[in-house]
């Protein structure tokens, strides 16, 4: 009995912790915006670009997404309170907030109408606000940025928390200070002398759930249709960042390792049942002899021992289930994984262990049933 309890508790613990780990890693990935798809035009195959209107059309024709956003980067300088700083200005649509790691501390992110109306508004990082204005709460303030010989005025609509990029530039920028800001790509194009309809050749699709495969399959045809690039193989689509793929393959490895461990544990549990049944048959040889002398048929003995094996493994399964859930709950708490119990998993484990118990109970039960009553009665 103990063998089965430990076996099943071990299997369940491993599986539940495995599930918890996957759920935790998945939610971490969501929080850093890993659920995205990159789309770009292959400039060796086409010289087309994507217009502002086409971007909106693509966005409207793919279901199940937050939105899409291009991501342009322009480099300029700003004369701020603490001297002149270099600035990376990222141009995107309002959906870029889904890129992750964006936590607003003041004001708001720029909006859809800001994008549509080419509003020269900007969201600054805390560091950027500090360098340009000397303090953080600068919503509504304006500053001028020089880029490629053009000077444009931007109005601050929001301040966001510094992200890893800000921190990286702060660390490695040396004497030069580089700060970050985000603005509507329409306004950026307008300010720095681009034609807004001829400089976008890539964008990112932000997913609102885990329907990545569905979106992947739809995105290509939508993009090819809208851009008139059918059959030219000029659209490159990659499912998220390399980080995403690496994580996924690591998760797959973990899943298979967990499955192998689970299978071994179940096997060990089954062999435990067989041992217990064999011992039980040996201990009760005399009882079997008595039963046979009283008229028990081979099948009656077989049924009795199989039923006992089933009850044994089922009871052991239930107790092991309780232990397994308790242990995994505690472990998940300690290592800060989410505690997820899939009911079908629990049912499956108990069912499989009972089945294994029965399977491994057959051999000793058959041995018991075939005992010669005279021999069996002679044993003490």
């Amino acid at each position, binding site marked *: 009995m103990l063998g089965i309890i430990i076996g099943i508790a071990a299997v369940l613990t491993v599986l539940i912790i495995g599930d918890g780990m996957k759920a935790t890693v998945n939610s971490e990935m969501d929080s850093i915006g890993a659920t995205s798809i990159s789309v770009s035009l292959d400039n060796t195959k086409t010289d087309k670009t994507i217009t502002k209107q086409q971007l909106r059309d693509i966005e409207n024709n793919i279901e199940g997404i937050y939105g899409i956003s291009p991501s342009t980067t322009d480099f300029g300088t700003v004369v701020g309170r603490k001297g002149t700083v270099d600035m990376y200005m990222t141009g995107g649509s309002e959906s870029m907030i889904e890129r992750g790691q964006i936590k607003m501390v003041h004001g708001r992110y720029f909006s859809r109408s800001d994008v549509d109306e080419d509003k020269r508004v900007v969201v600054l990082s805390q560091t950027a606000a500090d360098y340009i204005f000397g303090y953080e709460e600068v919503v509504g303030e304006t500053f001028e940025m020089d880029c490629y010989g053009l000077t444009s005025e931007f109005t601050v609509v929001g301040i966001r928390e510094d992200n890893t990029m800000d921190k990286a530039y702060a660390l490695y920028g040396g004497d030069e200070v580089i700060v970050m800001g985000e603005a509507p790509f329409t306004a950026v194009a307008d300010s720095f002398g681009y034609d807004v309809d001829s400089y976008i050749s890539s964008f990112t699709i932000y997913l609102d759930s885990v329907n990545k495969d569905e979106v992947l399959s739809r995105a290509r045809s939508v993009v090819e249709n809208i851009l008139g690039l059918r059959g030219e193989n000029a659209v490159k689509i990659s499912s998220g960042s390399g980080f995403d793929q690496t994580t996924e393959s690591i998760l797959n490895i973990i899943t298979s390792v967990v499955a192998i461990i689970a299978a071994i544990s179940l096997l060990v549990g089954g062999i435990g049942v067989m041992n217990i049944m064999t011992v039980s048959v040996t201990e009760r040889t*005399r*009882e079997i*002899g*008595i*039963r*046979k*002398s*009283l*008229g*028990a*048929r*081979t*099948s*009656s003995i077989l049924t009795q021992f199989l039923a006992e094996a089933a009850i044994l493994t089922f009871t052991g399964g239930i107790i092991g289930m309780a232990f397994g859930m308790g242990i995994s709950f505690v472990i998940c708490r300690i290592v800060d994984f989410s505690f997820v119990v899939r009911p079908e998993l629990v049912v499956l484990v108990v069912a499989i262990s009972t089945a294994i118990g029965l399977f491994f109970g057959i051999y000793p039960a058959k041995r018991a049933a075939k005992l010669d*009553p*005279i021999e069996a*009665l002679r044993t003490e």
Partner: protein
Amino acid sequence: MKKLVEIKDVCKIYNPGENEVRALNHVTLTIGEGEFVAIIGQSGSGKSTLMNMLGCLDTPTSGKYFLHGQDVSHMTDDEQSDVRNREIGFIFQGFNLIPSLTALENVELPLIYRGVSKKERERLANSALNSVGLEKRKTHKPNEMSGGQQQRVAIARAIAQAPPILLADEPTGNLDTASTKEIIRIIKRLYHEGRTVIIITHDPGIAKQAKRIITISDGMIQSDIINPDYKE
């Protein structure tokens, strides 16, 4: 008197070949319905083999065994089980009760294998236990009872299904004098109630309680007499 047991020229040979042991050597024996027979012999005389043969626990190497006119010499395991269940009530020297079951459950066992309904089983088992004077011990397990009481449970188990033959193998071998008397008294009563009783023993004191005494040695029947000292 109707023939119940007919053993015709039965041999049982172990280790056939050079070192063969003839446990039964051309035994012929007839026992009628309602007889009270003791089979007496020393250890190694073949009486246990004869008892196993009579109880359908074993099959002869040669010869025939008819029980109730049915040839039971060559049957499968399951057929033997069915015959034992229907025809024979065993009373063993070591009681052979199942330790994990109560007295009542032990008595019900052969009825379970016969397929009797739960209600009927309980009725039969209760009346069998009453008839051996164990009304108050029904829920006791074997280790909570004395040897004499355990043997009475075993007798109740043997008679619950009302088999034609009671086969008692050294029924008092493990008992003290008082319990022995009690068990012999019950066995005699069962005989008077019309059952066929066969006692296998090495003890002449027990054997002379029976009406007919068959002596066996070296696998052969040496004598088969009506007991002149038999008292009702």
